[in-house]
């Protein structure tokens, strides 16, 4: 089994209105040291495979096709192998 954590973020050159609003709120609260806020998505995916290379290529396909819209978003993922409990 592999556990994948997928991060989807808005591309650097694309405006992130949510991040801008949160940044403004943090400033209002007195967190003046905040220079920039970008909001993205975090996903956890369990994959039923023992082949790391296969898991990577499957995840890449998932990200390209569905999990990220590559017109406006970037993605990256981390894979960690783990053994099912009781197996």
């Amino acid at each position, binding site marked *: 089994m592999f556990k994948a954590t997928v991060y989807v973020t808005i591309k650097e*050159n*694309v*405006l992130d*209105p*949510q991040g801008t*609003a949160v940044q403004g709120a943090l400033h209002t609260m007195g967190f003046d040291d905040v220079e920039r806020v970008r909001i993205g*998505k975090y996903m956890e995916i369990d994959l039923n495979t023992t082949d790391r290379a296969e898991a990577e290529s499957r995840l890449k396909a998932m990200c390209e*096709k*569905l*999990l990220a*819209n590559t*017109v*406006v978003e970037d993605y990256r993922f981390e894979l960690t192998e783990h053994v099912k409990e009781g197996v």
Partner: protein
Amino acid sequence: MRWAVLVFPGSNCDIDCYKAVEALGEPVDYVWHTADDLSAYDGILVPGGFSYGDYLRCGAIARFTAVMGALVKAAEAGKYVLGICNGFQVLTESGLLPGALLRNNSLKFRCHPADLRVENAATPFTREYEAGEIIDIPIAHGEGNYYCDEATLAELKANNQIVFRYAGSNPNGSIDDIAGICNKAGNVFGMMPHPERAVSELLGSVDGKRMFTSILSAWRESNGAAAR
């Protein structure tokens, strides 16, 4: 001319679209997202709403339904495809139209009448409007902020694919005030405002009606005046 209105779980402007076509006296069917054949239809409407609850991204999940496979084939065959609001988002997600729709720059769901300028009156969707005409069509969206990269924008301009721009203040921050674009071939069109909500004086505007009559007259012209 036979029309289809696609219906996904969460579509909520399907009935408005159906009624707008019905008012033309043309045959129209609701087509559920599991259908895999649209070959019987000449015009296909992808309605507004919140398909699949807008989960992940607006239109991202709807884009992988069976009916979307059929829609891609219909678009390639030159059928008229009109995506409104969430329908526009579905068309960009599917790659039938370039770019993407982002969160409104105000972060607010904007729901009010909007003035649009007809930039291209030579498409099958706008042939009954005048170029430069200002029309009154309501908007209702939280993610209508059209974005594309500079190269795509230059291409849209070069091919006259920008069909509508917001004429008053831009309600969502879209690039170059874009409200609606078509594909290069001109048979696939997506827009954030709702023409189907502007087809009767009772609704506050009739300016959307000519979009539907435009499509009908374009179809009649290319299929012989007697065809139905």
